[in-house]
């Protein structure tokens, strides 16, 4: 997992370096893009206020991380987008599209880690962003529950 001198002895690192170039970036983009589509579908399909607001919120965040990817090569934003989709998908587990959203978030996060590793960059940024995403998602959900009547 960690890069640098230990990479040669790390089978995960070898796998990451063996996959086709561009796969990581492709997974990251496709995962978040599909996640945005799923979130919008949930917002339209579900009639429950809180679910609608949560789905629109995560769609905006994931879309923003796609846009941010055009401006910066940092892995922070893509990992944050994947994280938001992953954790909101876990919250919306009772909805089929919510499970799919969790999967797209997972793929986006894995893709971001792959891409970062292949680029020879440390994994601090994507891993940190993933867990920061959990904190931000949790805080956002608590605020939503307080502000939006169910």
């Amino acid at each position, binding site marked *: *997992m*960690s890069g640098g001198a*230990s990479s040669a*002895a*790390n*089978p*995960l*690192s070898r796998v990451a370096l063996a996959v086709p170039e561009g796969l990581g970036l492709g997974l990251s983009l496709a995962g978040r893009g599909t996640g945005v589509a799923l979130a919008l579908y949930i917002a339209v399909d*579900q009639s*429950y206020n*809180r*679910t609608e607001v*949560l789905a629109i919120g995560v769609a905006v965040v994931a879309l923003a991380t796609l846009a941010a990817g055009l401006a910066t090569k940092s892995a922070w934003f893509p990992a944050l987008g994947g994280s938001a989709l*992953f*954790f909101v998908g*876990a*919250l*919306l*587990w*009772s*909805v089929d599209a919510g499970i799919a959203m*969790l999967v797209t978030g997972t793929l986006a996060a894995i893709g971001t880690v792959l891409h970062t590793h292949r680029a020879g960059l*440390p*994994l*601090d940024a994507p*891993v*940190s962003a*993933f*867990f920061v995403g*959990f904190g931000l*998602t*949790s805080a956002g*959900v*608590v605020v939503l*529950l*307080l502000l939006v*009547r*169910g």
Partner: protein
Amino acid sequence: MTRVLLKLPWFICAPAVVGLAVVFAVSGNYLLGSSFARTFLDEADPLAAALATDNGEVAGDVTEPAASPTPTTGSILATGEFMDTTLYSGSGTAKVIEIADGSLVLRFEDFSVSGGPDLFVVLSTEPDGSGARDGLEVDRLRATDGNINYDIPPGTDVSLYNSVVIYCRRLGIEFSFATLETIP
């Protein structure tokens, strides 16, 4: 935390990161997931079902309530409308029904309540839904929406209770309540 994790050998670091993600996701779902979950249930009116059975029909086929249930099939003892609380919504009608065989049913009609964790249906002596903590626990909430029947424990003196409360036991919060008014 991440820096410390990433300095560990890969065979500790990778499972630790994945494990933490899974633990966070599962705990988030456990604590907050039910706030976004909707469940539907549509059960037949026990009065209509009893009337249909009396007439030789199959109770399960009845979808419409009887227009005017006869006293022989049972009666409605009390009724009330579910109301919102500060943070949560509730709507629909609660009915306390006594079936001809003497059993008591608490029926919710056109019912809807905000989702939440660990929700229970409680009978409270207080008309404003307070005191649910010490009330009579009828059952775990079986669905957030629909027409739902709950069996009231045999021997319960329903005249002692003045409200039906949807109570979150984990948080100790009333989600919605219906003040019961006795039908003369």
